[in-house]
């Protein structure tokens, strides 16, 4: 019997993987600091913006706000990000975000880290709202419904979904099953669930069945595109080398 190939989610290169992200899209970007940051996908998006002026006006969801002048920081520096939803917009070198924020060029929605993670999971799991004790009684709960359960107060939080997710994995198979490496797992599995189109760069792409079913961390149902980036750069290494992106701007 002839086999279908719609399950082969591989795309040829990072440029193709992000070619259709439109102006104004919401984009979840994996990583906690540099660990798990899909640098090559982000840089491909910047390349496209420099060549075409698109995409602009993005809403980015990430735990942080970038570090130095590469990756997410470079995306902000390029002027592509209208709004950032994150928990901790500080880093060793936060100058790009800090300036954009202080000059009013970027909007910030600050979310407690656990609430951010749970809102993304809820988006992926079809849970439109949930209650959490986090932020109760603080400025970050302002305007949110509060409810008492068993004598304790909780804040109602809404799900968070996105049009796209950019995620870095260690191993993928062609169906989009994923494994991650160490603490670079962080937001990847959640963002793949919560985005309409999850775009994954993986160090290795194997045929379907190349990952033991017991060891799949993200099942392929949550992944729409896979691109092999065999030698990904590490954000931390770029920043220690004081790199900027695009590189010619050094």
């Amino acid at each position, binding site marked *: *019997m*002839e*086999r*279908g*190939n*719609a*399950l082969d989610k591989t795309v040829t290169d990072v440029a193709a993987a992000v070619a259709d992200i439109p102006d104004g899209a919401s984009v979840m970007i994996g990583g906690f600091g540099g660990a798990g940051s899909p640098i090559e996908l982000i840089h491909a998006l910047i390349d496209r913006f420099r060549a075409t002026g698109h995409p602009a006006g993005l809403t980015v969801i990430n735990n942080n706000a970038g570090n130095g002048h590469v990756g997410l920081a470079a995306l902000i520096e390029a002027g592509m990000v209208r709004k950032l939803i994150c928990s901790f917009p500080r880093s060793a070198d936060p100058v790009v975000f800090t300036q954009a924020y202080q000059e009013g060029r970027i909007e910030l929605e600050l979310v407690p880290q656990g609430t951010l993670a749970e809102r993304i*999971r809820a*988006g*992926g*799991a*079809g*849970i439109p709202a949930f209650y959490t004790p986090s932020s109760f009684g603080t400025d970050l709960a302002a305007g949110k419904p509060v409810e008492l359960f068993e004598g304790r107060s909780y804040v109602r939080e809404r799900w968070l979904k996105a049009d796209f997710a950019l995620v870095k994995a260690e191993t993928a*198979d*062609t*169906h989009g*099953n994923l494994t991650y490496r160490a603490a670079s797992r962080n937001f990847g599995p959640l963002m793949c*669930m919560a985005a309409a189109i999850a775009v994954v760069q993986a160090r290795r792409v194997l*045929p*379907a*069945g190349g*990952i033991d*079913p*017991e060891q*799949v961390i993200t*099942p*392929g*149902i*949550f992944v729409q595109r896979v691109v092999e980036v065999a030698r990904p750069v590490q954000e931390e290494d770029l920043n220690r080398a004081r790199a900027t992106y695009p590189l010619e701007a050094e």
Partner: protein
Amino acid sequence: MDKLTDNQIAWRAAQDIADGAYVNLGIGLPEKVAQYQPPGREAVFHTENGILNFGESPASGAEDWDLINAGKKAVTLKPGASFFHHADSFAMVRGGHLDVAILGAYEVAQNGDLANWSTGPKGVPAVGGAMDLVHGAKRVAVITGHVTRDGRPKLLERCTLPLTGVGCVTRVYTSLAVIDVADGRFVLREKLPALSIDALQAVTGARLLTPGPVADLICPEL
């Protein structure tokens, strides 16, 4: 009255499953749909208890009872399979990640309401994953005989049995016809060639609309 066999209904439902689709099949008749994937297409089947991309039953005696589907039948794995816990499994369901769920029915109403979990207050109630599936998959279809065993219509103006879900069904594959639910009404899309619309209407508990062409429902011998 001539009617499709269960295998034929399953075959017809399988024709609407796109290449690469993620699919959940209910226990019983819906499970048969997996056997009739059209050539050139490959679907991934999900089972609520925590497997994606399971395959056919193993040979008798070769069962692994840790490798079962939602109906607690032994299955096998296909390349690209994965295991996950129940919360992740229903995140797939509830989160809209399945392309289609195909379920059995006691009753379907013209507004898309489905009753398939309880035949009333007698006996032990049991619901399983049906109430999650009807609100999760991008497309919820029903596969069923057109009438009950004693000849009463299963397609109704309103369900009389306890509901599984409200306004959730969009297409019904029956032993006589293919019927869509659109804007709160049944729309006839296909019927057995030998069957008149009047004869079909006579065994249907709600008005069948025919705003467009009605195709012949033709299946291979199965």
